[in-house]
């Protein structure tokens, strides 16, 4: 079973839920899909054993063959090639590696080269099989890193996916093919607004979902009444607590310190398993 954890708004507690759930279950595959700002391993503390580069291809122009006809630049939907008088410029960061420029070049002047834009790492902690992707600083495209990362998903195992914030492509790539999605929110106007966006995404992808309210009892009651009205299950509430916040700040998962929560996370997992079976 694949469970992903998403939110819309950043900083609502995705990593907190994902890592505490994983540490309560053990024997899971864990994927930190926030390749722009991966934080899960601060809590999981896996010893990284191996690393694989993520490369993408980009065009190289053979100056001897290029006659500056501009067809490649005209075709490129991403503005990754510009032809200025007798110069053809390539902007590798903008290239999506679609292969179009090479197809349209009448002079066979384009070949491909690879460049590294990030890497994926694997390690273990206790019985957690931990994977994370890391996008290099200055790179734009999280998707190739995410695709390589998600190739490691073993559907026969219990898999936990910590998704990035937002609602666009990286989130969709992270959560797609999940059996269930936990949406983490906080009971504030920002949390509520972005929750509704996240609900649209998981509905669009037809993934069953439920909600966890983090920092319960700050803010207002709008998230709860929305869930009630729309028959969205509230799976868990985590109170706003100085103790939990302080443990978080030090990178300590609270299930390790407050044992009651370990049982609560196990129950959460059972509840989700039941919902997925139905």
């Amino acid at each position, binding site marked *: 079973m694949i469970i992903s954890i998403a939110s819309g708004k*950043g900083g609502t507690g995705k990593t907190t839920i994902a890592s505490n759930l994983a540490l309560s279950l053990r024997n899971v595959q864990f994927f930190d899909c926030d390749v722009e*700002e991966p*934080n899960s391993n601060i809590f999981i503390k896996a010893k990284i054993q191996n690393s694989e580069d993520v490369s993408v291809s980009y065009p190289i122009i053979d100056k001897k063959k290029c006659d500056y006809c501009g067809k490649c630049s005209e075709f490129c939907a991403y503005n990754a090639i510009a032809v200025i008088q007798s110069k053809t410029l390539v902007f590798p960061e903008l290239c999506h590696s*679609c292969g179009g420029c090479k197809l349209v070049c009448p002079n066979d002047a384009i070949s491909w080269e690879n460049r590294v834009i990030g890497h994926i790492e694997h390690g273990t902690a206790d019985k957690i099989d931990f994977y994370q992707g890391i996008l290099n600083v200055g790179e734009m495209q999280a998707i190739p890193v995410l695709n390589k990362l998600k190739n490691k998903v073993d559907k026969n195992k219990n898999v936990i996916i910590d998704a990035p914030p937002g609602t666009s492509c990286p989130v969709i790539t992270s959560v797609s093919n999940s059996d269930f999605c936990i949406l983490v929110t906080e009971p504030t*106007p920002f949390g509520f607004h972005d929750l509704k966006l996240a609900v649209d995404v998981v509905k669009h992808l037809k993934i069953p979902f439920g909600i966890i309210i983090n920092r319960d009892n700050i803010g207002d009651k709008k998230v709860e009444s929305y869930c009630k009205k729309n028959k969205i299950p509230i799976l868990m509430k985590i109170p706003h607590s100085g103790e939990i916040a302080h443990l978080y700040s030090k990178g300590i998962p609270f299930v390790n310190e407050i044992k009651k929560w370990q049982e609560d996370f196990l129950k959460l997992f059972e509840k989700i398993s039941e919902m997925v079976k139905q």
Partner: protein
Amino acid sequence: MKQLTIISGKGGTGKTSITAAFASIVKNTVFADCDVDAADLHLILKPKIKKTMVFKGLKIASINLDKCTDCKQCFKSCKFGAINEDITLNKELCEGCGVCSYICPANAIEMKDRKSGFSYISETRFGPMSHAVLKTAEEASGKLVTVVRNNAKEIAENKNLDLIIIDGPPGIGCPVIASITGVDLVLIITEPTLSGIHDLERIHSVANHFKIPSLVCINKFDINTDNTKRIGEYCKRNDIPIVGKLPYDIIMTEAMVNEKSVIEFSKGSLSNEIIKMWDKIKLRLNA
């Protein structure tokens, strides 16, 4: 005209609340919400929309199965896995490159415009605002960020305003880069947690990569003073001025619940700290 972007790397550190607070202090400024994925600034600024524009993101392939000869060239050529073997389109995966349309010998694939969202020009009680909405499960948020920024620049030029404050998205990838390229200064909002510190270091490297000077604000600095000290040391080593240390105060959330900026909502010490911080940022912007 100067441009300041508020970023954080990590989400939920307080970017939007602090942008809204600045909005109630500054004058002659355009506010741009570049977190187009999950925009929240409008919840406090309550813009009155003056102009709505359709945002066309990347194009999308449209397959005419009547013309299709099932040669599977498109399926074989698509680098994004957006065309299935039975020649149906996986909309979410299509990046609009046009290779399938180009390669199809039967002319059965057309690249069509895709209405991916809307951009807006609005008025608020603090001044003009540029913002946008990306439709569910659409791509090209980086491109929409650029539209929002261009709209903001246009407003600033037309109304002769001297500053644009940009509320940026979390992360370090495409939409973040689109939000900071060419700005004069970034303000990084961090928090004294290990995650906050990790993400601060990454986002600061991105700003450095694009040669944009950074300032740091430590929000909720009192929730872990050891970590606040570590942030201080990191900033010192990297020569980043810390322009504000804001205490944890539930008033920030209360202001949000009341749909007001914290400056409007309270005259307390948090508001004072933010006003002092803005004075320091102003000096840097005009330096």
